[in-house]
């Protein structure tokens, strides 16, 4: 029972076990003498202070939100896009109909996009400039 997906599946499986395979091969060729200094995380040469703190504000999250919403939108658009050519070539009226449907769909979501844009969610460092540097950023813990 062969479908195109079997190759995909096989590809995935092979890909998945390729990396461990390579590493295994490497393991036997490579020297392995762990040294605490070597094993410490790399801090541009300095001694690593504390573990990797990072406390982001939520702008990464906003980006992820936008991505997900538009990703879903696009996922929804694909089937419509696929049938677009067929409708358009079939008749002018149907073409206009599908065009208007797509336009409506996109327009509604564009409202959200415009909102995000005007509200300044795209500026990445807005937070940094305007807000005085967050104490934790100031790096006073590094003294």
């Amino acid at each position, binding site marked *: 029972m*062969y479908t*195109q997906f*079997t*190759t*995909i599946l*096989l*590809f*995935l499986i*092979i*890909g*998945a076990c*390729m*990396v*461990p395979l*390579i*590493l295994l091969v*490497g*393991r036997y*060729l*490579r*020297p392995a*003498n762990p040294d*605490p200094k*070597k*094993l*410490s*995380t*790399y801090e541009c040469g300095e001694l*690593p202070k504390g*573990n*990797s703190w*990072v406390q982001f504000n939520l702008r*990464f999250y906003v*980006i*992820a939100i*936008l*991505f997900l919403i*538009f*990703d879903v939108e*696009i996922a929804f658009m*694909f089937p419509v*896009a*696929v*049938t*677009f*050519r067929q409708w*358009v*070539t079939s008749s*002018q009226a149907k073409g*206009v109909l599908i*065009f208007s449907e*797509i*336009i409506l769909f*996109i327009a509604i979501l564009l409202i959200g*996009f415009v909102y995000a*844009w005007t509200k300044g969610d*795209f*500026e*990445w460092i*807005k937070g940094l400039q305007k807000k005085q540097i967050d104490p934790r950023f100031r790096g006073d813990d590094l003294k």
Partner: protein
Amino acid sequence: MTSLPEFLKELFESWPLLGILPVWFYSIVAIFGLLFLFLFPFAGVAVYVERKIAGDIQARIGPNVVGPYGILQWIADALKLLLKEDIIPTNADKKLFILSPMLIFISGACAYAVIPFADNVILANLNIGIFYLLAITSMVTLGLILGGWASNNKWSLLGGLRAAAQVVSYEIPVALSILTVVLVTGTLDMAQIVKMQGPFYWNIFHNPFLFISACIYYIAALAEANRTPFDIPEADSELVSGYNTEYSGMRFAIFFLIEYAECFIICAVATTLFLGGWHLPFFDLSSLTLGLRIPLQIMVFMTKSILLLLTMMWIRWTLPRYRVDQLMKLCWEVFVPFSFACLIGTAFWMVLFKGKGIPELILGLFVS
């Protein structure tokens, strides 16, 4: 329009021993062939070529020590990486440390399954080809985040998250441009798309909007692969080498390899979607015999994508790096709106001209 394994099966059907082999055997052979014969050597060569071009651009000589003109440099690098000690930081999360390269490798490699090198030479002729590619590439973000997180290094985590944010946000323009192409072609099947582009009905010339979205696609894809102007995560000066700071040895090699694989995928997809895949403008290759047609088509396809790749490399060593907020602003305030505009434009164009592109219209003028 069968896929490569079926094509091979037909070829070797008559052979005595190979006849009984099931199709998926051929697919395994094809996969291994693709990986080892094409992917890994190509990556190495690409590294060499890139360093040569970089040197040339910076008026210096690239690697020329190993083998004539340094051609074997990449083999030396590969061996070095192979033999180099593999360090896992102490308080790093061991399991995740290993998992993240796997994820990235899978997402990078599996994309090749749907790229139509030639008429029947496509590993998996899915009828949702391009959509599958989009889905798989979206897995890269996962690997980036995990990589950054697992190495328990402040900078690598920051780099990882930033890389993820970048990849994520640039995926929207890429997806939108792909959507516009699908709008025009009407199918998701890559082979079908290429076939529809005929000798010179290339999509890029289909309508001006599509041309813009092709450019958007090319640049956004660059950013998605963290190449040159957008390689903030590994920006040496700031975050050492981003999420793969802690990786060394073979794991680092994998990261490196996947980077070049993704670059090639970008070029390949660009050629299939916009530049007419394995079509030569004026020569109809399909009429040739099998033995000649396939290699020619593959050659045509490879020249187009390698040309794109070279431009990529060229861009890398000429343009200065974007600041992070400029990067984001560029994506969200330029690419996304323009790609939406192109989408709507092409739709409008399609409605207007009932799906015919400029080449067809011009041809129509003459023919009638």
